[in-house]
C-alpha cells in the first residue's frame, strides 16, 4: 500500500512547493545577510535559521507521508481539540513578541500554535461536513460548521492577532463548494462593499443613494406589483448596518486600525508615520523596473527601509531585486499551485479529502491575496505571512503540514474503499 501511495504522490505539487520554498529562502537571505561571513551555526542570522526550518520541514514531510491516510480522518476531532487547547494555553504560558501573545517559548525556539490550528480546523471541518448525517443546507448544521471555524478565530483575536483570525474566512471556500447557499456569499460581499462605501462617503449618503436607486427601480417595475415591505426591510437593514459600521469604526476601532483603512482608501496620506510600511514597500517594488536590480543588489532591501521585510514584506524584496518579471513569476507560481490544488481536490472520491483540499486552497489563497495585496498597497496592513516565502519556523511548518497532509490524502485516493 505504501509503495503505490508514494508512486501516486502528486509530484507536480511537490515541485511547485519546492520552488517557492527555495526562492523564498534566497530572498530571505538577501533581506537579512550582513557583510561578514556567517558560520552555519550562527543562529543570530535569520537566513541560517530559516535554512534549518526548511531542513526540518523535510522531516515533517516524511512523517506526514508515513502516517496512514485514515489517521487524519479518524483523529481529526482529537487534533482539533488539542489545537484549541494549545491556543487557550497561550493565555497562561504564552510569550509576547511585538505585542502579540502568540508564542510558546521552547528555549531554543518559539512555536506559534495558531499556524498549526488552521490545519487542525480544516481537518475538523472536513470530518464534520463529510459525515453522512450532515447536510450543510440545514441551518443547525450550518451553525455547527460556523462554530468549528469560529472557535479558534475567537480565541486568536484577543491575543491580539486579528490578521490570523481573518484567515478563517478561508473556510467559505469548502462551505460554498459543499452547497452553502450563495446568499451567504452575496450578503458577505454586499456587507464588505457597503463597509467600504460607508467609510468613503459616510452613512447618510450611502443610505440616501440606495433609497433613490430603489425608488427608481420600483417606479419602473410598479406594474409587476413588487412586495414593497421586503424592499423597505432591506433598506432598514442597510441603514442599520451603515450607521453601526460608522459607529464601530469611529468608536470601537483603535486609531491604528482606522489609519490603515484610511490610507488604503486614499483618505489620508502619511508617508512617514503610519503609512511608512506600505509606502516604503511600494518604493522598493517600484524601483525594481522590468528585471529588477539583481539578487542581493536591492538598495532598499540593503538599507533596511522596509520594516519586517524578511517576514510579512518579503514580497517587496522579490519586487525590487527580481523586477516585474520575477514578481509576476512568483504570482503565476502561486496561481498555478492553487489551481492545481483545486483540480486535485475535485478528483477526490472521499468527501473528507475533497473538503480538506478546498480548505487548503482557501487558506493558501487568503494568505496569498491578503499578503500581496498589503505589500503592493491594495489592501490595509494586515500582518499575515506569504505562504512558503516569509521567514518563520511555525509558519513554514504549518503550511508544510497543511499541504502535505492533503498530498498524502490525494496519494491515497486510489485506496479508497
Amino acid at each position: 500500500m505504501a509503495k503505490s501511495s508514494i508512486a501516486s504522490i502528486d509530484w507536480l505539487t511537490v515541485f511547485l512547493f519546492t520552488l517557492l520554498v527555495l526562492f523564498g529562502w534566497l530572498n530571505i537571505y538577501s533581506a537579512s545577510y550582513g557583510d561578514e561571513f556567517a558560520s552555519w551555526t550562527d543562529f543570530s542570522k535569520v537566513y541560517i535559521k530559516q535554512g534549518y526550518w526548511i531542513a526540518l520541514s523535510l522531516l515533517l514531510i516524511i512523517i506526514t507521508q508515513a502516517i496512514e491516510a485514515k489517521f487524519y480522518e479518524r483523529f481529526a476531532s482529537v487534533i482539533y481539540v488539542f489545537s484549541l487547547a494549545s491556543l487557550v494555553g497561550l493565555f497562561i504560558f504564552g510569550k509576547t513578541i511585538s505585542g502579540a501573545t502568540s508564542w510558546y517559548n521552547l528555549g531554543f525556539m518559539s512555536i506559534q500554535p495558531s499556524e498549526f490550528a488552521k490545519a487542525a480546523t480544516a481537518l475538523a471541518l472536513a470530518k464534520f461536513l463529510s459525515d453522512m448525517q450532515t447536510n450543510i443546507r440545514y441551518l443547525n448544521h450550518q451553525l455547527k460548521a460556523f462554530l468549528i471555524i469560529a472557535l479558534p478565530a475567537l480565541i486568536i483575536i484577543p491575543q491580539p492577532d486579528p490578521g490570523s483570525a481573518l484567515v478563517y474566512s478561508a473556510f467559505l471556500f469548502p462551505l460554498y463548494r459543499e452547497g452553502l447557499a450563495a446568499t451567504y456569499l452575496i450578503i458577505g460581499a454586499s456587507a464588505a462593499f457597503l463597509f467600504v462605501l460607508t467609510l468613503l462617503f459616510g452613512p447618510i449618503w450611502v443610505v440616501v443613494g440606495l433609497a433613490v436607486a430603489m425608488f427608481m427601480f420600483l417606479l419602473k417595475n410598479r406594474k409587476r406589483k413588487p412586495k414593497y415591505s421586503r424592499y423597505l426591510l432591506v433598506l432598514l437593514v442597510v441603514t442599520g448596518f451603515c450607521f453601526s459600521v460608522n459607529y464601530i469604526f469611529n468608536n470601537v476601532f483603535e486609531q491604528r486600525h482606522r489609519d490603515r483603512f484610511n490610507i488604503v482608501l486614499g483618505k489620508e496620506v502619511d508617508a512617514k508615520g503610519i503609512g511608512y510600511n506600505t509606502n516604503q514597500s511600494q518604493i522598493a517594488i517600484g524601483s525594481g523596473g522590468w528585471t529588477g536590480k539583481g539578487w542581493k543588489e536591492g538598495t532598499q532591501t540593503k538599507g533596511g527601509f522596509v520594516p519586517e521585510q524578511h517576514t510579512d514584506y518579503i514580497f517587496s524584496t522579490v519586487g525590487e531585486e527580481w523586477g516585474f518579471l520575477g514578481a509576476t513569476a512568483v504570482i503565476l507560481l502561486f496561481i498555478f499551485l492553487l489551481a492545481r490544488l483545486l483540480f486535485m481536490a475535485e478528483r477526490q472520491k472521499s468527501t473528507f479529502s475533497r473538503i480538506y483540499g478546498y480548505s487548503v486552497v482557501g487558506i493558501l489563497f487568503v494568505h496569498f491575496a491578503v499578503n500581496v495585496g498589503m505589500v503592493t498597497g491594495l489592501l490595509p496592513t494586515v500582518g499575515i505571512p506569504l505562504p512558503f516565502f516569509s521567514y518563520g519556523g511555525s509558519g513554514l511548518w504549518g503550511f508544510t503540514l497543511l499541504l502535505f497532509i492533503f498530498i498524502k490524502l490525494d496519494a491515497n485516493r486510489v485506496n479508497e474503499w
Partner: protein
Amino acid sequence: MRKLLLYLIIITTGIIFIARLFYLQIYNTSYASLSEDNAIKVIYDYPQRGAIYDRNGKLLVTNQPSYDVMVIPRELKPFDTLEFCSVLNISKDKLIRRLQKARSYSPRVPSIVIPQLTKDEYAFLQEKMRKFEGFYIQKRSLRDYQTYHASNVLGYIGEVNDAAIRKDPYYLSGDLIGIDGVEKQYEQELRGIKGVKRIQKDRFNRDIGPYKEGKFDTLPVNGKDLQITIDIALQKYGERLMVNKRGGIVALEPSTGEILALVTAPSYKPELLVGRKRSREFTKLFYDTIGKPLFDRGVKGEYPPGSPFKTINALIGLQEGIVDTQERFSCHMGYYYGKTNRRLGCHSHRSPLNMIPGIAHSCNAYFANVYRRIIEKYDTPQEGVDNWKKHVESFGLGNYLGNDLSAGRPGRVPSAADYNKQYDYPTYKWYATGTISNAIGQGEVLATPIQLANMTAAIANRGYFHTPHIIKAIDNKPIEDKNYTVPKKTSIDKEHFEPVIEGMHQVYTQGTASFLQVEGIDICGKTGTAENYTKINGERVQLTDHSVFIAFAPKENPKIALAVFVENGYWGARYAGRIASLMIEKHLKNSISRKDLEDWVLSHSLEDEYAKPYSKEPFKINQ
C-alpha cells in the same frame, strides 16, 4: 458553476496583482527615482578649475581656496551665539534669520550660513568650530586673479542658474560656471569633470559603505589649463592709454588672427567679481548706464567706420576695373551731385588727386566718384549695391566673425533689398547717389572695432585673414581648429593691395597722421572721423565726432594690425591715431621713445566731453 467560481476568483486575483505590479514597476516611474533618492547618497568631488596664461606664459588666473560655514539644522545643539557672532562678525538677528531660512529649506540637508570666508577668518574659526555642533566648514575653490587687466577678455564665474541646470544636467544647484569671456567660452575645458561617490544608506540615514563597492564611483578630472593669445603687457598698456576715455582697441597678429589686445574702456578689475563682494560690485557695474563698464566696446560697439572704410572702396574700385591708380578727381571742398547740387563736404587739400594721395589726404570727393562708378557699373543700382556688398563682406564685415569670444555683434552692410524697403521701391526709385555716404564709411555701414581690426589685417596680409581668436593652446597643445588655422580669402586680387597700402603708408609720411611717425617703423594707417548723433529729450543732437584709426606695421611682413576707436575724440589722428601709434611702438619695440606723446594721451581726459549731453545746457561740439 460552483467549481468554476473558485477558479475565477483565484485567476482574477492573479491578474489584479500583475496589473498592480505593472503599474508600480513599469508604468509609474516616480517610485524608481524615489528609491534613488533615499537609499543612495551622492557625494561630489570638485576638481580644480584650469588656470589661464597669456601668450608669453604669464599666469593670469588661478584658484584660491574659500571656506563656507555650513549648517545642518537638525544637528544643531544650543551654542554660545554671542561668541559665534563675534567670531564671524555678523549680527545675532542675521544669524537667526539665516538659520530659520536653512531650517525651512531642509532640516537634514546642509545650507550655507556664511559664504566665502577669507583665510584669516577661517584660521580663527577653525579652532572654535568644535564648540558649535551642527556647523561645519566646507572648502570650495574661487578664482584668484594675478592681473588687474583684461577683465572683459577673461570674464568671470558664478553659481549656475536654473536655466543652465535644465539645459545641462551636469550642473547642480550651487555649482560654479563661467558666465562671461573665456571662462564662459571654454567652460568645458576649464571646469574638468567632477568625481562622484555613491554611498549606500540605511533607513536611519547612516552611511553603510560604498554603493556596490564603488563600482560606479568616478575620480574628478582636473580642468585644462588655457593659454590665450592676449599679450598682457600690451593689454595693460592699452587700458592705461584709454583711461578717462571711452572706446575700444583691438590688436591682431595678421599672420595668425590671434588677438593681441582687446581693450574696452571704461573697464574694471577682474578681482571685483570674485567671492562675497561679487554681487555688490556687479550691481554697481551693471547700473552704471552711462559708462557701461560691462559693455565690451571692442566686440559689441557698432560704430560707423568712417574714413578707414575708404580703403575697401579703393580696393573694390581696382578689382572691378572702374578706376586705375593714376586717374585724378577734382575736389572743390566736396563732391556735388544730383539735380539740386547736393554736397558731400570735404576738408581743404590740394586738388585734383589720384588714388594714393586720395587715401593719404582722405579726400571725400575722390571716393564719392569711385563709389558711384562701382555702383553704376551695373545697369541697376540694385545689382551694383549687391556686388559691392559681396566684396565688403569678404573682409568679414556685416556678419558675426565666428570667433571664440563670448560676445559679438554683426555690424551692418546694407543690401539692395534694404534700400528697396527704405525707399519703397518700385514706387520710388533710388540711385547710387542716394547711398553716397557709403563711399566714406558713414551712411548705413556699421562695424565693430574687432571687425575693423580684422579688415586691417586682411589688407596687411594682401588679401586674406585668419578669423580672430583668443585661444592659443589648451593643456599646452596649440589649437588645430580649422576655423582659425585656415586663411579666408577676400574677393580682391593680391596685386590691387600695393597701391592702397602705399596710400596708407603716406597717411603717415605726408598725410593726415604725419605727426605720428615712429622712427624705424614703417606704419600704414588710415584716420577716421565719424559723425554721430544722440537723442536728448527726443531731439536728434550731433555730438563731437568719434576718433577712429586703423593701422598695421611694419609695412612688409606685418606683425600687428589694429583698430582704435575713441568715442567723441574728434578727428582721427587726435586720439585714436596717437593711441594706435603708441600701441605699435610698444608692441614692436617694447619701449616708448616719444614720452611727450605718451604724456599727452595719459593726461588728456574726455570726461568733460562725455558730460556734455547730460549737462542739460546747450553745448558746442568739435572743439
